[in-house]
């Protein structure tokens, strides 16, 4: 994260909150703010948690989780508690609380671990286990954490290098992506075959299935990628499938393009899954999916339609020669 002038943060905040702007522009402001240090950037994202667009609001919750600023816990808790809020936003607020990882969030996560929304309930269960796992690492030393956990506990800013040195100090493995994941990866001793069958086994605990998925993501061999992608078709959990789509976007492999396109086009899939599939396609930036993203930009479900617009913006950015800064903090017009 970087220090940014108050004026630049104010401009980004204005853009983020301006409902008359196209969604891709608001999204770039969102992820620019995610890279800014300080209270003003955090408060801008907090202000957008109540945006009428569930898509934008949920990604603000996501960004707050990634920033791991304990100052965001109170507003995220209020979002989770408010049953009038879109379930997708509540789910992301719960995930963000898990990402921030402070034990003081355990009571509220326990309260909503049986929420009537399945996605919210499952996310709270994952977040509870993540925080408990981290506490165990802290108390048990590094030996308990050898199999994963990319950050050491603490409210610090998590810059790339900071994260790296912290995890190196703790002797644990860091995510190859600059993301704070909902679970650590499963032990590296498991074979790709074992990991895929664990991922696809709905009788297994969600935390362990997620762990299998993150190990497969870190492995990123063709077998691992196809194994992850097969969950989009085969599994029934919308929560698992949305995370599957997200990690496929992280890997950016063309092998995932067909399964993701199928998930986006399948109106029987949960909007959360279709949304993550669209954004993953944007990140992979294969020209093959431009047409599909364009056609679903007018989907009746706004979460899907806006995701496709954002995905096209990311796709065009990624396709540029020398593309470097998607979420710039040096604000231009």
């Amino acid at each position, binding site marked *: 994260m970087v220090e940014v002038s108050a004026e630049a943060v104010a401009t980004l905040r204005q853009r983020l909150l301006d409902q008359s702007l196209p969604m891709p522009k608001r999204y770039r402001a969102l992820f620019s703010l995610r890279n800014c240090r300080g209270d003003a950037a955090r408060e801008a994202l907090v202000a957008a948690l109540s945006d009428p667009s569930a898509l934008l609001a949920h*990604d603000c919750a996501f960004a707050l989780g990634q920033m791991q600023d304990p100052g965001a816990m109170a507003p995220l808790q209020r979002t989770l508690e408010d049953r009038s809020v879109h379930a997708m936003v509540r789910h992301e607020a719960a995930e963000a609380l898990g990402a921030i990882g402070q034990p003081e969030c355990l009571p509220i996560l326990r309260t909503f671990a049986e929420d009537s929304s399945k996605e919210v309930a499952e996310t709270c269960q994952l977040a509870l286990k993540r925080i408990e796992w981290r506490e165990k690492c802290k108390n048990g030393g590094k030996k308990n954490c050898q199999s994963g956990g990319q950050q050491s506990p603490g409210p610090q800013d998590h810059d790339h290098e900071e994260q790296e040195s912290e995890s190196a100090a703790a002797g644990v493995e860091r995510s190859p992506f600059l993301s704070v994941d909902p679970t650590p990866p499963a032990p590296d001793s498991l074979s790709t075959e074992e990991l895929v069958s664990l991922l696809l086994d709905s009788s297994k605990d969600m935390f362990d299935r997620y762990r299998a998925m993150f190990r497969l993501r870190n492995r990123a061999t063709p077998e691992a990628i196809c194994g992850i992608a097969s969950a989009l078709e085969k599994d029934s959990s919308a929560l698992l499938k949305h995370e599957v789509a997200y990690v496929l976007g992280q890997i*950016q492999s063309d092998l995932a393009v067909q399964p993701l396109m199928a998930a986006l086009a399948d109106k029987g899939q949960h909007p959360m899954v279709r949304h993550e599939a669209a954004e993953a396609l944007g990140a992979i930036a294969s020209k093959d999916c431009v047409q599909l993203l364009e056609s679903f930009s007018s989907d009746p479900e706004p979460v899907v339609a806006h995701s496709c617009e954002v995905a096209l913006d990311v796709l065009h950015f990624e396709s540029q020669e020398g*593309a470097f800064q998607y979420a710039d*903090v040096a604000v231009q017009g």
Partner: protein
Amino acid sequence: MADEEHHFEHKADSGASKTFPQQAGTIRKNAFIVIKSRPCKVVEVSTSKTGKHGHAKCHFVGIDIFTGKKLEDIVPSSHNCDVPEVTRTDYTLLDITDEGFVSLLSDKGDTMDHIRLPNDTALANQLKEGYSAGKELMVTVMSAMGEEQIAAVKDVGPK
């Protein structure tokens, strides 16, 4: 017999001058990197802001370790880059031929005659002048990706 051994060692050396993969996000300033198939030393690295998927891009500015040419590349931080194996070996200068080759003696007592005078004229002159003046010169040969070049000269006193 000695000749055979010499050839064998030489082959083993060039076999080791390959590349290995390293995650872009972990490559720092002053490290080595392959840009456009050339071995480079990183003189500048900057990382972009992270987007939704945690992607960041690394912008590398490198200097070709043999030609001194500046090269640039942008790579996602999670992707692997090729990193050249760069070795430096010291030899004693035995001779400079009229064709611009040097004859070198390794500390194991092997001679090597296939290296040219360096492209760097100052360095080449230092070698030629020192050699004519009868000084004992140590040269450092840098090798990477099958290429070799004299990178430094040290005067270790009169012969």
